[in-house]
């Protein structure tokens, strides 16, 4: 047991998301998407899930979100088992999934509208979040008037508008070009640090996974499982140039070895 060093009380207070023996099978048990995953995620930490297609990383994320239920084991968030979608968890997808009949501002307001009637304070908060993601001037634009990167920024603002302290991101910038993705990743790091959220980030890009995270869950396929948890002890804030440092490359090699070993 790795956790043995810490006192039990500290562990309980510090771990906000945990999984014990979490498994998921699809299609009458013939497809094992995820097998026996054990993990604990600390408050305010950034965790990347990296692995090839079919390793169950999206499945794991959806299990934490409550969109799907585990076939075995349990996911616990803030001490209570996840049984369905909940307000302290918010999710972002590879596609921006904006509603094209709403302005950027109204898209950001959607979570508030679903929870109740938005107040002027909610609207001001949505406007502030749009400014935080650098889209203050585009609050009244419709999605069709925004570039792919800008649409994802709106989706990010909407993610934050929920007020959830656990953020789940499923390859959020995967469909964007390299430059836009790097810029948005840097901003994402700044923003989640600013709001103090606990973040789970799914990607199939090893460098991206390490660059962003405090911990990388390396996942392998057939059956999908968490093969190794790699701690990333690099100082923050991290400049883009850190990706050429020896320490960074050692981590990449470590992850690559785990992925190649199976």
């Amino acid at each position, binding site marked *: 047991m790795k956790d043995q060093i810490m006192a039990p009380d500290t562990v309980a207070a510090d771990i906000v998301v945990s999984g014990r023996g979490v498994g998921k099978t699809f299609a009458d048990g013939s497809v094992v998407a995820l097998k026996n995953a054990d993990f604990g995620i600390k408050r305010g930490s950034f965790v990347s899930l990296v692995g090839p297609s079919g390793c169950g990383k999206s499945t794991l994320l959806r299990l934490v979100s409550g*969109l799907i239920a585990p076939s075995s084991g349990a996911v616990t968030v803030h001490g209570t088992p996840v049984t369905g979608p909940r307000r302290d968890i918010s999710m972002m997808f590879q596609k921006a999934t904006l509603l094209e009949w709403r302005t950027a501002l*109204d898209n950001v307001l959607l979570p508030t509208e679903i929870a109740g009637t938005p107040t002027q304070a909610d609207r001001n908060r949505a406007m502030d979040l749009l400014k935080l993601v650098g889209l203050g001037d585009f609050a009244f634009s419709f999605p069709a008037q925004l570039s792919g990167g800008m649409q994802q920024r709106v989706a990010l603002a909407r993610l934050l508008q929920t007020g959830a302290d656990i953020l789940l991101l499923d390859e959020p910038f995967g469909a964007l070009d390299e430059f836009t993705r790097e810029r948005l990743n840097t901003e994402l790091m700044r923003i989640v640090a600013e709001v103090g959220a606990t973040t789970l980030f799914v990607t199939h890009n090893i460098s991206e996974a390490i660059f962003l995270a405090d911990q990388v869950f390396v996942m392998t396929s057939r059956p999908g499982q968490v093969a190794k948890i790699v701690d990333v002890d690099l100082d923050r804030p991290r400049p883009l140039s850190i990706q050429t440092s020896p320490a960074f490359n050692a981590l990449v090699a470590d992850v690559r070895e785990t992925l190649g070993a199976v």
Partner: protein
Amino acid sequence: MTNATLANDARILDRIIRFVPHVVLLGLLIGAWELGARTGLITSIMIPRPSAIGGAIVKLYVTEGTIWRHFFVTLTEAVVGFAIGASVAIGLAVASSLSEVFKRYVIPYAIVLNVTPGIALTPVVIAWFGYGMGSKMALAAILCFFPIFVNTLTGLVQVDEDREDLFTSLGASRAQIFAKLRVPSALPLMFAGLKIGLTTALIGAVVAEFAQATDGVGVLMSRFSFQLDMASSIATLLSMTVIGLMLFYTMEFLDDRIVFWRRESRRAAASRAAARTWSGQAGK
């Protein structure tokens, strides 16, 4: 200000210039037709001269004005029939989208109705609803039902899975998913169906008039044809085109306003309106 006016003037001028070739082409076609009829190349009893049609138009629409009563009869039949058919179609599509069981039982009937040539129902519909406007409205309703039903149902059911996941993860209720996601997503397809339905409703009204009726442009047209007054017959046909255009552009206008996010100019206007509302609220 002056610049904007200049740009506006340039745009209007541009539009006029682009319009000119169309007018010239139409003029040439009519001119050739007139010439052909006058030189005896075209039998003018069957295919009347454009000038004769022009004369018939003036007589029917202006001097005697006989067409207007029939015009409004047909227009009413098509519009009321369309309203009935569209309401039933949208109602059944909404119910089908909400209940898998309901959908399973409704769809076979909808398909049977679609593959049966709707026009073939004319004698039956006339037997049921009589010679008056009722049978015309019924046929119009039947003919416009299917395209509206299928398009609306497809639009309501085909919702992007990621968006549905988003709503679910936000804890949205079924009613919220329906009102805030399914309905707006379905609107573009629904309007496509409504536009097709409007045209088929007019076909239904006119065909039923051809079959058996006392009023309507269909009756008027077959009466003229029977008397071999082809000029008047074609002049009457033109009124159907006018009805068709009126209905189509009304729907086009509604489409443009309601599904505003699909057109750049409408989006820009909606953006400005949203910005104005915001500064209004912030000022309070």
